[in-house]
């Protein structure tokens, strides 16, 4: 007996979705049309399982110029300066082929940013892998980091930050997120809405080939099973050199005012770009596939439409400007093909060899996409997890605990990663990776931008709402201790299979927690990305929402706080609430005890706002500020001591107080005996000596702590 899978099922569509296509068209779709709908209505492109919940995020602040929905969010930095930011995921491609998966993730996010008219000036990479004791996880980790370095360094955009977590459930589904920031002057802002009947659609950049066909629908919108490495041909291949030329060419196009609108080609390639740019402007378009410059000459219309070949842009220009645009492309040594003409609409018509191969209402690919209200249910097993509250014994030696924690690769020195990335290009980097936030200046102004990405998948698994809220406050505190005020958020919501009610519950709770925290901080959410189906062999990842926070300061601190600025004789203070015995999901319980249990403490919004504000103020006055997070006060103090090359004394704190992870707290190290702050403050010790000396709670020699911390990643990767 043989069975044939219907085309739409093979393309990842349901029967109901197929029926809806038939209804829109009033007929059976042609092959190319079906290909277009299947990709545009994939989870990755249409957000069909998440869209119903994303309205919870608020982008309503006066400094928001462009909110969610465009290629990137845009905020106003004053004096005509704007910042564009965006975050994306490239999870499944990076599991199938770590180097190219990560590399093309960087390329894609950069196009989103320079599509807006901005010059990309920074990339950040939040990463999640399985534990490094497994050789395959090391291979993925190494491959992803070199892919980011290989592409980012060569394309000429500095990678200024990111973060990393290691946990078992990421072994077969690593997370590779990437955030990009660009800056532009207000007059350079370009949007992706075609206008002007008769205007020309010019495809710029790389030739279209068979790489990446079905990337969005096949790789990014379905769960993984054993043997899915065979999906390697679905992964795109990146060419940073082509992208670099494309960036420079596009920026010059904008400078000379030659484009009406522009759209990058990402997921779903030409079908997505043409339908979006036409649909956004309420127009139609006639597209001639014979004009597309190809890498292989026997491609079918469906393949050309679906190809996810990298480094391509679609610009709408007036017929008068077409020759100048072509000349400019030639000068920058990139290819340009006029592939379409803007029509009054609403149809997007695609021709191949004179035949009409697709005719669909342009806006229907985006606007008519399915919308699912998937069932959500809190897992009953959480009751037992919450009831099991971890504690810290009073008689442990904090020095011994640090010997274990500082060796954890998510706590130890991460310069193994950041030193492979060019993080200095453009001469903007004032505070480099390795601090709570990175600080970039805007040259020839007094303005500065602090950046931090944060996620905490394990704590978020314990309580999605509280966990997600806490990462927002942590990101806010990270930019505040760097000298900036929280200004805009982008979020990347990495979750498992949304068709499972427990995953959907995690998602909805996390959205609620993040949105609430952003509201409490008055920080707008200007963009985001949802990555579902992070499930392999039936195992869902830990829910991993990631926050990308842009902080802004004007002026910038003259001497921004640094972790390596502590000196003997300085006082140590803690600002924020007293520890509340918060060990659920703490480094102590996870790394030392090997447990994941309990319910993380909630955050107090009012207090959070005050602490963040206090940090942003004190950052102008004090040499060292450091957020207290993973590993509590003990790890945070160790990081300051190691980075500054000097020991410290802390007397009256118990092991539990030193390892507690109660949020909304930071350390200050500075001269003098008194510290004024409008948030609670407590002096706890003094810098000096050659040990991390916690009095009766234990100690460890500084040199030993430093060696353990520095070797945490290198010794595993050697």
């Amino acid at each position, binding site marked *: 007996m043989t069975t044939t899978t219907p085309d739409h099922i093979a393309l990842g569509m349901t029967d109901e979705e197929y029926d809806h296509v038939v209804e829109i068209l009033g007929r059976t779709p042609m092959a190319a049309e079906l290909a277009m709908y299947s990709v545009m209505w994939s989870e990755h492109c249409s957000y069909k399982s998440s869209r119903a919940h994303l309205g919870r995020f608020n982008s309503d602040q006066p400094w928001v110029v462009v909110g969610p929905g465009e290629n990137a969010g845009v905020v106003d930095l004053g004096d005509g300066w704007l910042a564009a930011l965006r975050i994306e995921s490239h999870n499944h491609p990076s599991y199938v082929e770590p180097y190219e998966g990560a590399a093309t993730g960087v390329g894609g996010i950069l196009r989103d940013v320079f599509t807006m008219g901005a010059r990309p000036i920074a990339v950040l990479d939040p990463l999640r892998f399985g534990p490094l004791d497994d050789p395959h996880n090391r291979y993925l980790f190494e491959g992803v980091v070199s892919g980011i370095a290989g592409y980012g360094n*060569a394309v*000429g955009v500095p990678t200024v930050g990111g973060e990393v977590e290691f946990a078992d459930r990421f072994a077969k589904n690593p997370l590779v997120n990437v955030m990009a920031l660009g800056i532009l002057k207000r007059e350079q802002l370009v949007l992706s809405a075609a206008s002007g009947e008769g205007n020309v659609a010019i495809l710029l950049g790389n030739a279209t080939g068979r790489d990446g066909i079905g990337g969005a629908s096949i790789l990014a919108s379905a769960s993984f099973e054993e043997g899915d490495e065979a999906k390697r041909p679905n992964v795109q291949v990146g060419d940073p050199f082509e992208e670099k030329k494309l960036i420079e060419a596009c920026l010059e196009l904008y400078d000379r005012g030659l484009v009406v609108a522009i759209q990058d080609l990402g997921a779903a390639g030409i079908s997505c770009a043409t339908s979006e740019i036409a649909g956004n402007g309420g127009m139609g378009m006639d597209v001639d596939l014979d004009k597309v410059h190809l890498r292989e000459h026997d491609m079918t219309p469906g393949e050309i439409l679906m190809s996810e070949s990298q480094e391509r842009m679609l610009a709408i220009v007036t017929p008068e400007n077409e020759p100048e645009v072509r000349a400019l492309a030639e000068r920058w040594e990139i290819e340009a093909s006029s592939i379409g003409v803007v029509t009054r609409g609403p149809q997007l018509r695609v021709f191949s060899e004179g035949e009409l191969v697709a005719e669909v209402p342009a806006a229907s690919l985006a606007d008519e996409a399915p919308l699912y209200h998937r069932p959500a249910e809190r897992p009953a097993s959480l009751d037992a997890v919450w009831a099991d509250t971890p504690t810290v014994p009073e008689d442990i030696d904090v020095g011994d605990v640090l010997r274990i924690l500082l060796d954890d690769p998510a706590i130890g020195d991460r310069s193994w990663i950041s030193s492979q990335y060019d993080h200095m*290009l453009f001469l903007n980097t004032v505070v480099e990776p390795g601090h709570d936030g990175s600080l970039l200046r805007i040259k020839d102004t007094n303005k500065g931008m602090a950046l931090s990405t944060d996620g905490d998948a394990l704590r978020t698994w314990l309580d999605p709402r509280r966990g997600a809220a806490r990462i927002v406050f942590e990101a806010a505190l990270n930019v505040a201790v760097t000298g900036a005020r929280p200004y805009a958020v982008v979020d990347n919501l990495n979750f498992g299979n949304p068709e499972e009610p427990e995953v959907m519950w995690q998602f909805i709770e996390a959205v609620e927690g993040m949105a609430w925290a952003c509201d409490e901080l008055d920080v707008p959410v200007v963009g985001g990305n949802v990555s579902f189906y992070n499930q392999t062999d039936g195992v869902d990842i830990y829910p991993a929402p990631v926050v990308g926070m842009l902080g802004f300061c004007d002026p910038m601190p003259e001497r921004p706080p640094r972790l390596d600025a502590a000196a003997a004789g300085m006082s140590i203070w803690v600002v924020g609430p007293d520890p509340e015995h918060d060990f659920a999901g703490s480094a102590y319980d996870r790394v030392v005890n090997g447990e994941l249990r309990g319910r993380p403490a909630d955050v107090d919004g009012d207090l959070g706002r005050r602490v963040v504000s206090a940090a942003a103020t004190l950052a102008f006055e004090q040499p060292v500020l450091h957020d207290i997070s993973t590993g509590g006060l003990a790890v945070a103090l160790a990081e300051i001591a190691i980075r500054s090359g000097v020991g410290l004394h802390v007397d009256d704190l118990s092991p539990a107080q030193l390892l507690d992870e109660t949020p909304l707290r930071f350390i200050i190290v500075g001269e003098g005996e008194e510290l004024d702050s409008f948030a609670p403050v407590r002096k706890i010790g003094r810098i000096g000596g050659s040990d991390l000396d916690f009095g009766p709670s234990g100690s460890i020699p500084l040199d030993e702590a430093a060696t353990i911390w520095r070797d945490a990643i290198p010794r595993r990767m050697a």
Partner: protein
Amino acid sequence: MTVAVVVFPGTNCEHDVVRGLATAGAEAELVWHRDTDLEGAEGVVLPGGFAHGDYLRTGAIARFSPVMAEVERMANDGLPVLGICNGFQILCEAGLLPGALVANRDLKFICRPVHLEVESTDSVLTRAATRGQVLRIPLNSYEGNYVTADVDSLEGSGNVILRYSDAGGRKRPASNPNGSTNAIAGVTNDRRNVAGLMPHPERASEAILGSDDGLVLLESFVASLELVSA
């Protein structure tokens, strides 16, 4: 035009170099790799980046870019010529400087500040520095490992101008970041008017960036322009 800063497709440090030169007191102008007339320039800099994507081999394609005939003419005329990072690789590939740059010893890209000791002040890049001076300047390369067929004659010629060291100027295996032969970080030609180095002096040209130790090198280059034109 005073200094021509060459932009190949894939170059990315051109604006940083222009800014660094301005801080050091020189005006600079970007020139495209297809330009074949640098007549007005008193000196030329090949900045860092990935010229032509570094495809085939670093500098292998760039050396054939049309502008290189002018760079060679200027070198032969005794004008100051400087290659930074990728620019150094191109000058080596073009035969204007001795040696070549191969993959780092640990086969990883390295982006971090390193220490350099000034070995010789007899070059357009080091004339304003003092011998033995230790500079802290960022390195940013994958192919930064300097090799040469005959290192003894290179050393004998006095053409080694910068060497990796530790903060105290000592040369130890750990202070050689990329495995360069004899820890060589920068060299000059026999005429001392062409120089190349792997670290980026423009990235250490303002205190707010963590170091301004690179300024003395850029100032040397600017002073050399004035010497030639005087």
